[in-house]
């Protein structure tokens, strides 16, 4: 479970990127955070995976205050999360297989097991036939699927995706969010930052509306 208590974030005075955000995301939730550009979606997601520190407030993940974890131990938090970015953040000089294998290599999984799990995950995102291709040779939709495969390969508890469909056409965007929905059905808590109303309307179970860093609405279906 993710709990945010009175989160404030200021990059530059006098503007607040987040103003008193309090939120609870339960295990297994499929959560959309939405709002116009500059509303604080990315900032909110970054505070959850502790890429940035809030100016004030407390964030508990499974009861642990992540703001008190030492920098040198932050990997313990990150290993429970799969993070997907709008710009995919792939290693373009490495194959699809190598890109997806990274989270497993980091935790010291054996080579055979890595092969098995990477193949299975790529099969789920329907990219197993392009396992040995370089990402640069794939379409944007396929590249994003590689990024999703990398995020889910070690079965994380939480998937955080920041505008994962921002670079994709509506059809592909639909396909990608369907994939997240599948992952969510298998037990992972999924949080997606997006401003795509169509997608949110179609998939949104829980929706958080942000404007100028403030929560202006919540919906649960």
């Amino acid at each position, binding site marked *: 479970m993710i709990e945010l208590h009175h989160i404030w974030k200021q990059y530059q005075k006098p503007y607040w990127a987040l103003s008193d955000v309090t939120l609870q995301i339960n295990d297994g939730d499929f959560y959309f955070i939405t709002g116009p550009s500059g509303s604080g979606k990315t900032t909110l997601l970054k505070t959850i995976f502790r890429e940035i520190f809030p100016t004030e407030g407390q964030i508990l993940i499974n009861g642990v205050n992540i703001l008190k974890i030492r920098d040198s131990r932050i990997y313990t938090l990150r290993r429970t999360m799969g993070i997907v970015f709008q710009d995919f953040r792939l290693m373009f000089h490495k194959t699809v297989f190598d890109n997806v294998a990274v989270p497993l290599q980091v935790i010291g*999984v054996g080579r055979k097991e890595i092969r098995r799990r990477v193949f299975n995950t790529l099969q789920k995102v329907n990219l197993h036939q392009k396992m040995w291709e370089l990402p640069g040779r794939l379409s944007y939709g396929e590249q994003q699927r590689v990024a999703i495969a990398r995020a889910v390969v070690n079965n994380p508890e939480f998937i955080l995706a920041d505008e994962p469909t921002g670079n994709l056409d509506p059809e592909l965007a639909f396909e990608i969010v369907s994939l997240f929905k599948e992952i969510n059905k298998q037990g992972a808590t999924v949080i997606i930052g997006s401003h795509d109303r169509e997608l949110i309307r179609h998939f949104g179970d829980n929706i958080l509306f942000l404007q100028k860093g403030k929560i202006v609405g919540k919906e649960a279906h």
Partner: protein
Amino acid sequence: MFEKLKFFLNVTGNNLWQFRTRNLFSVTIICLSFLTVGIFMSLANNLRATAKELSSNMTIAFYLDKGLPAAGLDALRREIGQPGFVESVRVVTPGEALERFRVSFPELADIVAGLQTNPFPPAIEMRVSAKASASKEVAAFVEATKRRTGVTDVLFNQDWVEKMQGFSRLAGAVGAFLGGILILTSFFIISNVVKLNVFARKNEIEILRFVGGTNLFIRIPFWLEGITLGLLGSLLSLGLLFIVINLFPIYLGSSLGALQQLLKFRYPDLNQAVALLLGGAATGFIGSATSVSKFLKV
């Protein structure tokens, strides 16, 4: 453990290959730096060995008055043989001295044949133990004996031993100084090369951080990269040093004449070779570690 090591080596190898031009440049600089150190080291080795050779063969000759009676010569011989540092004492008669001269300088045989009288005085030759050859005790003893009645002159080459030892120390110091500056340069070059590599792989490092890579996991390939560059550079410098040692006498040796003996290079011994290699690895490691800790905020 083995899997991780394999993974690190694989990443390091790929990274070295990916940025091969700049890595080759840093290996060249390290190689030249350690080659300079190696050249001075082998020169110092030779001077040290020459000094040792001189001191182990050090013979002090006391030339005596031709009119010294046999009893006086005998007393002097016993006295000279007394100190602990003396290995042996031998009396050289004028006849023996003339014979040695004839053997040593056969081209002067005509002059020797034309001599009316034997110009060589009798002498006492004293061999000093190698350990004590450069000691002040020997010098003091020689100085005191020189003033004894019946002793006309002394041939003592302690100065040469001291000079050789001095040259050897000087060559070592010059090598350490120049090498130190060059190694420092290598250190900064490695540091900058690794810094460039860190920047070039910023995206990859960020991905590793997001997927839960530990600081150590992210840093190890960079450290290995520095160590490999340092090791390759110093290994190459050792190879070049052996070539220089072999080629030097062929191309320059004969033109040096009498200096050839002094400017001869000797192969570094195993300890020195290992020290050079470890020095290279350490330079590489420190260079990369500094850069990584400064520019890799993980």
